[in-house]
């Protein structure tokens, strides 16, 4: 009798979640699968078009371009983030004053809105009067076309994204570094281990989970890039900063191609899952887990 009542309570308590899930997650996924086979601009009736949307997607220059752009972003962002975070974490791991103060400083960009960071960096990256170029000119160097060169635009966004997020990983790496007992290093020194060996066998395992996290979260972040290209470049120059979400947004909310936008959304989602899955496999295999 009491067990039965307990059962019901459990159900009732998760019921709100299940209702919410059905309405806001399950139904949209199913509807998306339905919408992919139609053409619809919201004010006119839906039109069944079979596989036309898929055909279009396969031949869509912008779809493939956005994937390439995301890869460019990740190739620069991920290594930069790991190296920078590790560097500062190592520094913070030493016996220093005001560790808390530095920690707070590094973490500041993480909490601030992406909109603020983007608007700020838009000024830093300005070609003619931007802060960065003025510094370069004062140093006697050439100006860089940060946001106006098709080769530099996405890397510039990658650098900005690193600046924004690295604080979190500095802290996480620091935790990993601090969890290694000092006598491990001392023992290694006694055995005559080189710097690289110490790093490879002592440090690396303790920060591996964090590296793993950087890679996965950055990948997901790269495919979710929206507000930065939206404000700074509108996807240009020459479509070099067109991101997946920006393209979906354009198709869905500029042109009201709801069916095609849903198709794009579906395929990008599948792509993300595939990439993350492969990364997990690769990293887990690599660390012998």
């Amino acid at each position, binding site marked *: 009798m009491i067990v039965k*009542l307990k059962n*019901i*309570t459990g159900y*009732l*308590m998760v*019921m*709100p979640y299940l*209702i919410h899930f059905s*309405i806001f997650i399950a139904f949209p996924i199913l509807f998306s699968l339905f919408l992919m086979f139609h053409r619809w*601009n*919201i*004010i*006119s009736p839906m039109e069944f078009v079979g596989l036309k949307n898929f055909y279009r997607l396969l031949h869509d220059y912008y779809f493939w371009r956005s994937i390439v752009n995301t890869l460019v972003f990740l190739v620069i962002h991920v290594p930069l983030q790991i190296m920078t975070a590790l560097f500062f974490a190592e520094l913070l791991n030493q016996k220093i004053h005001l560790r808390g103060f530095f920690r707070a400083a590094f973490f500041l960009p993480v909490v601030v809105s992406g909109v603020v960071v983007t608007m700020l960096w*838009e*000024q830093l990256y*300005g*070609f*003619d*009067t931007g802060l960065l170029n003025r510094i370069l*000119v004062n140093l006697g160097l*050439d*100006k860089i*076309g940060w*946001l*106006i060169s*098709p080769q530099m635009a996405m890397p510039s966004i990658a650098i900005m994204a690193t600046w924004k997020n690295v604080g979190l990983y500095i802290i996480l790496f620091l935790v990993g570094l601090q969890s290694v007992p000092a006598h491990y290093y001392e023992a290694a020194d006694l055995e005559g281990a080189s710097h690289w060996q110490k790093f490879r066998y002592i440090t690396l395992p303790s920060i591996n989970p964090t590296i793993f996290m950087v890679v996965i979260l950055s990948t997901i972040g790269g495919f979710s890039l929206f507000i930065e290209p939206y404000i700074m*470049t*509108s*996807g*240009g*120059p*020459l*479509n070099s900063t067109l991101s997946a979400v920006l393209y979906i947004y354009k198709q869905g909310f*500029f*042109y*009201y191609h709801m069916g095609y936008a849903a198709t794009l959304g579906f395929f990008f989602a599948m792509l993300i899952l595939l990439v993350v899955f492969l990364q997990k496999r690769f990293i887990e295999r690599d660390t012998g887990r």
Partner: protein
Amino acid sequence: MIPQILFLNISLSLFLAFVSCEKTNNIKNQKILYWSANNPDEIIFAKKAVNEWNDLHPSSMINYQPVPEGRSSEEIILAAVVGKTTPDIYSNMWQGDVEFYARGKVLIPLDTLPDFMEFIRTRCDSATLAEVTSSDGHIYQIPWKINPIMMLYNVNIFNDLNFTTPPSNYSDFIEAASRFKEDMNGDGYIDRWIGYSEVLAVWYQRFFDFYPLYLAASHGAPLVKDNKIVFNNTLAVEVFRFLQNLYSNDYFPRERLSARSDPFLLSFIATRFAGPWEIAHAEKFKPAGFTYDFYSLPVPDDHQGDIYTYGDPKNIVLFSTCSRPWEAWEFLKFVISKQNDLQFMEITHQIPRRKNLFNDEFFSDYFARNPRMIPFAKQAEFVRGTDVCPVLKEIFDILAQEYEACVVFGIKTPEEAISDAAAAAQLLLD
């Protein structure tokens, strides 16, 4: 225990069910609802017109509201159409959007109203009427106002460059550009240019460079006609070539100057392709001694005859949710009458799309007192809007992409760019 949880769950479900029911149509407000653009001057004009009408016609009063604030009024209108909360009358509809809504059957065909065609012919010439006729032969919009794009220029700079009149053709313009271009602070980079246009490959930016110049060069030729692309011609190529020239010689900057303070008023650029709205802005922010004026757009060297431009036309539409369109039309005849067109110019300094505006005695006093508007009034005879096409935005997006590749970055020849654009656009229409 159970009652509390049950209660929580039931109320949550009821709440969700309640709010998810489609809103039934509210009892229609008896008055006709009119939305205008929400810039301050137009609001003043609309309020005045509505109040006057209501005083004279207490039995068919109009309820007025500026269109709700949003990122763009186009988006607000779409949201209203989708949510079925449209007003009866809307007076800020961009001409390029009308075909999309007409095909969605949310607008009333105005030519079916008894005295519409008769009245409208007194106001608009046949070219304008042809322009606003939809693909099914009906007319869904009243041509209301335009803001012609012309060449805004800095008078003092051109005097210094030894130009008695501003450059009127491409060669003169390029000549002026080469004289004006300079690296003022000696850092090895040009920081003074003859002009500027947004380099962003966004579809609406081309309404301020390529499209007006194309209309100027081609005597107002369309881009799309009868579902066929017709811009694949030498004039479009020449326009692209002219613009490409400007960028490759550093006469126009590749950088986004809009991210910093107004470069025209600070004399970093000498010209700008813009409309009458610049007047208010310039008067507000110009430095002492700054003199500016407007001139027609530059055209190819061998151009003869009138110079057209893009008018950024905004028109009046009636939504199909309107239950008494004939009443609304009576009010609109009042709004677009000569008296109110004059009021409109006085208050908002925008140009009504009326034939013979400059030569009509009725308005001559206004132009005597507002000489800055004269170039636009003269230009008003030679203005084009947009072609009838439900995918206009996408066609301009295609043009913007080719523009970026050819004009701004020079990686395609103008011939290639125009023909690629035409091919891609034709695919859209098929």
